Structures are given as structure tokens and as C-alpha cells.
């Protein structure tokens, strides 16, 4: 693999051990994928996970004197101060979140603690070369904006942020961005929730190929596209898709496939939606809580919840996870007051897959996100998956149909 003089110096330790480690990882990744050279990146997002390995690695880079050349936005951990008010947090978990915050601050990350950087604070332009980890972020960056990123590991994205480089391979190259599987959507698409089902059922049909959708509405909301990408890249490994007439690399069917024939054609029907919903959702009945925000809710979604809770009282706990910016907007717009009065919480900087939810373990909840239900399985949380509207209604009644 060809390296510039500066890149060689990074690898040889001229800029310290931390930078050398980061460059060693990137060279290894590059060689694994047959990259011929590095490219400069202008943006990065690191899916900090607040787990031991994550912390060990970022602290190792910090000890080696590394700071980020391109300051990345970062994923949520959990909001220690908020949860200490309402529940018990283990001493060990408190320790690890404090060390995580300190390490990412020391390495020079932009402390957004939010998993939808593509909607606020880290929005790329068409064609921009970037390094994003986080399953809902990579498809949005690639597909909706037409910027370029591989499906980075949290660690490889951090190495890219430190060195300002990433190996040139995969989805950074034109030839790998062409569509491979034609997905004809015959199912009726009524609202944003249908994109959750669409995203979750497609990878099983398409496998590893880049899907190209036809038959979808021509003006989807940001939330619809956020849902689609998050579920595609959770149920499978799909960091790039195209929607004909909607996403920038697919003005026509022909353009989406780079003039070639699809390798495979699949059809998605209403029955597929029903089957996937039955497969991944628990059965209805009494519930103990409602949890939203995987990925973090937008202000428009928070507003929808607030309007449904106007003058109502919740029968069970209701939690909305969102960014600090969105929470601030929710305060200004009166949404927070409405939700709080009904007995609900809006918590910023927090992910549904964190050790702050002990009080919900072994309980049954409702959520709008299949991804939320998937990652909390190992925390022994059970979920019924419904639309936001149905979930809020269930939280008011204490049970779901």
C-alpha cells in the first residue's frame, strides 16, 4: 500500500505512539481490503459504546498522546446525573461512563452524545469522503446525502479521526456504489413506521447486495429515511441503498444500477410486513413501560408524542431518548412540559443499550423501533413493536392490543 511521507511518519511514530497505533490499524484495514492508498477525510462519527474495549482503546490512544485531526461527533452513553435522580446506578457503571467522557474529551472529540449526527452537527455534502460508524448513520450518509463512508467499526472511525485518513476501498469507490438487488415495494407505505418494517424485512431477501427500491413515495420524511437505514443495517449489513427518484445516486433505475442488470429481483408485500412484525414483536397485553429513541427522536417525533399526551396521564413509565439540542427545543416549544406533566421523561445523551435501565430488566415495554428490541434482548427486556401513536396510547392505558 502506498503511503505519503507524512503517513509513513505517522506510522513510524514521529507524531507519537497513539497516532502510530491509529495508522497501524488503518494500514491493516487497507491491506485487508486491497486498498492502494489512503485518502483524507473531512468528517467522522465514532460510535463510542461505553464498553470496556471501547474505553481501553481510546485511553490507549490518549496515553500515546493522540488527539483528533478531524474532531468526530460521538454516540450516546448514558446521562449519569439524570439517571442517578430516578434510579440506582452501579458504582462500576458510574466509573466507566465518567472515564469514557474524560477520554473522548481528552482526544478532542465533539461531545454530542447523539446517534443521529447526520441530522444535526455533522452533515456532509454530496461526494464528501468521511468515516462514520453507527448503524443508522452510515446508510444515511451514503444513501441520502451521497457522501461516502465504509461501514466503519467504532475503532477504525476513531483511528480515521486521529490521523485524518482512511484507506481507499469499498464504498469510497464509484464501482462499489452501484445497485445490485432490485427491491420492488408493493406493500402499502402509509407512514414512517412502515419504513421500520421495510428496513427490517429486506436484508433477509437481498443478502449482502446494495438494494435499489422502487415503488416508494417520492417525498419521504427524514424520519422515514432514518428508520429505513437503521433497520436495514441492523437486520443486515447494508450501509448503502438507493431509492429511484429520491436519493441522489439514483435519478433513474438505470443510473442506480450503473447501466447494468440487477443481479437479483425481490418483491416486498403487505404480507412481508405482517410476518416480520409477528416475528420480532412480542404479543400484546399488559405493559410496564414505553421506550422511544433508537435512533434518537427528532423534534418532530417528540412533538407527535407531546400532542398525544396533551392533558393525559400515563399509566406506565414513558421514556424519550434524544439529543441535547432536541431536548432544548422541546423545552422551548412546550413539548417537554406537556410530556413531564403526563408523567413522561425526555432524556438526552442516552442510548437504549446502556447499563442505566436496570429498573426495566425483566419487564415488558412498547417501542416504535425494531432495533431497540433487538439490542435489548441481552438485557432481558421484552418489547411489543408498534407505531409511535399506538405506543403512546398503550402507555396511557397500560396495555397494548
Amino acid at each position, binding site marked *: 500500500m502506498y503511503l505519503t511521507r507524512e503517513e509513513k511518519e505517522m506510522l513510524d511514530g514521529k507524531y507519537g505512539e497513539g497516532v502510530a497505533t491509529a495508522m*497501524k*490499524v488503518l494500514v*491493516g*484495514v487497507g*491491506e*485487508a*481490503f486491497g486498498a492502494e492508498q489512503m485518502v483524507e477525510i473531512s468528517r467522522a462519527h465514532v*460510535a463510542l*459504546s461505553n*464498553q*470496556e*474495549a*471501547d474505553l*481501553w*482503546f481510546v485511553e490507549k490512544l490518549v496515553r500515546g498522546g493522540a488527539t483528533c485531526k478531524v474532531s468526530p461527533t460521538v454516540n450516546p452513553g448514558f446521562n449519569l446525573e439524570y439517571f442517578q435522580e430516578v434510579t440506582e446506578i452501579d458504582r462500576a457503571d458510574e466509573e466507566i461512563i465518567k472515564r469514557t467522557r474524560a477520554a473522548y474529551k481528552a482526544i478532542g472529540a465533539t461531545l454530542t452524545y447523539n446517534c443521529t449526527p447526520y441530522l444535526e452537527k455533522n452533515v456532509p455534502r454530496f461526494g464528501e469522503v468521511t468515516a462514520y*460508524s*453507527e*448503524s443508522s448513520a452510515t446508510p444515511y450518509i451514503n444513501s441520502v446525502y451521497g457522501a461516502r463512508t*465504509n*461501514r*466503519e*467499526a*467504532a*475503532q*477504525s*472511525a476513531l*483511528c480515521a479521526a486521529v490521523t485524518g485518513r482512511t484507506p481507499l476501498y*469499498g464504498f469510497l469507490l464509484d464501482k462499489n456504489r452501484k445497485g445490485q438487488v432490485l427491491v420492488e415495494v408493493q406493500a402499502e407505505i402509509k407512514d414512517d413506521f412502515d419504513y421500520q418494517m421495510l428496513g427490517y424485512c429486506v436484508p433477509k431477501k437481498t443478502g449482502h447486495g446494495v438494494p435499489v427500491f422502487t415503488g416508494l413515495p417520492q417525498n419521504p420524511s427524514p424520519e422515514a429515511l432514518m428508520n429505513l437505514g437503521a433497520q436495514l443495517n*441492523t437486520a443486515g*449489513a447494508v450501509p448503502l441503498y438507493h431509492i429511484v427518484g429520491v436519493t441522489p445516486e439514483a435519478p433513474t433505475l438505470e443510473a442506480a444500477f450503473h447501466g447494468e442488470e440487477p443481479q437479483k429481483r425481490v418483491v416486498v408485500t403487505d404480507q412481508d410486513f405482517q410476518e416480520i412484525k409477528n416475528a420480532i414483536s412480542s404479543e400484546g397485553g399488559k405493559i410496564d413501560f414505553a421506550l422511544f429513541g433508537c435512533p434518537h427522536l427528532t423534534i418532530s417525533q417528540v412533538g407527535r408524542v407531546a400532542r398525544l399526551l396533551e392533558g393525559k396521564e400515563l399509566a406506565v413509565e414513558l421514556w424519550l431518548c434524544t439529543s441535547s439540542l432536541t431536548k432544548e427545543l422541546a423545552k422551548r416549544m412546550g413539548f417537554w412540559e406537556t410530556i413531564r406533566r403526563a408523567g413522561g421523561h425526555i432524556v438526552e445523551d442516552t442510548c437504549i443499550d446502556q447499563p442505566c435501565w436496570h429498573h426495566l430488566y425483566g419487564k415488558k415495554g412498547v417501542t416504535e423501533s425494531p432495533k431497540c428490541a433487538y*439490542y435489548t434482548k441481552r438485557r432481558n427486556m421484552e418489547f411489543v413493536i408498534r407505531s409511535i401513536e399506538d405506543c403512546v396510547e398503550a402507555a396511557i392505558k397500560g396495555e397494548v392490543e
Partner: protein
Amino acid sequence: MTGQPAIFGCHKISGGRAQGEALVSTDDICFYLVDPNSGKVIEKGHSLEGQSIAGKVLIFPSGKGSSVVQADGLYQLSLKGTAPKAMIIQYPETVLVSSAIIMEVPLVDQLEPEFYQRVFSGDQVEVDADNRTVKVIRQR
């Protein structure tokens, strides 16, 4: 009875050299679903379910799992001394590749099809990533 060692070329992903007992998996592996204390695969329905990968030369198609859980899984195994000694894969993906390099576990790919016909769980295998060779010493 041991036979003549067979030597194959390979492509280095993560450097280093190690010898150990081969363990062949037909399924992709997520190290988050391996018990760090015993090294045993705990994923239901996995072709290695219940078997220990500790100290083995692990031969499998590819990694799977989200960007963070794979690294944490391999990290926990390394911490407890139950990580594989080396890994041989067919389909590299970024998350597994960066995890292996960070944890300094030798990892190679691009073995010829004959390798997969020759190697069985229980064989002694030496992976020399730096010299791009894999040696199989038949144990049966």
C-alpha cells in the same frame, strides 16, 4: 498418526505467528456471543455452540455483529486468556479486521480452496501471518 505437513500461501491481515489446534466453523462468528471465562460459544444454533475457541486456530467464514460488540467480545476473551491464538477467514469485514489488529491476534485470508478440503478440527495448524504461510499437520 501424523502425516506430512501441507503448506499454503495466505494474505496477511493482522501480523504475528502462532500454532495451535484447528477449530473449523461453518458459521460467521460474533465474539460477543462467546463466554469469556470458558471460551465456549454460547450462540444458540451456532455450528460451534458449546465448543471452546480458547487457544485454538479458529477457521471461519467471516465476522458478524455491530461495530462495538465484536471488539468488546474479543477484548474480553483476550483479557481472560480465552481468545483464539490465530484466525483464518474467507470474507474480511472492517469490524473484525480492526478488532484483530487492535487485539494483536494474527489474522489471514485468501487461502486456496484445497486448504479447506485438507483442514479439519483437531489438526495442528501454524499460522505465520508475517511470512504469509499456513502449515497444516494432520493429526489423524
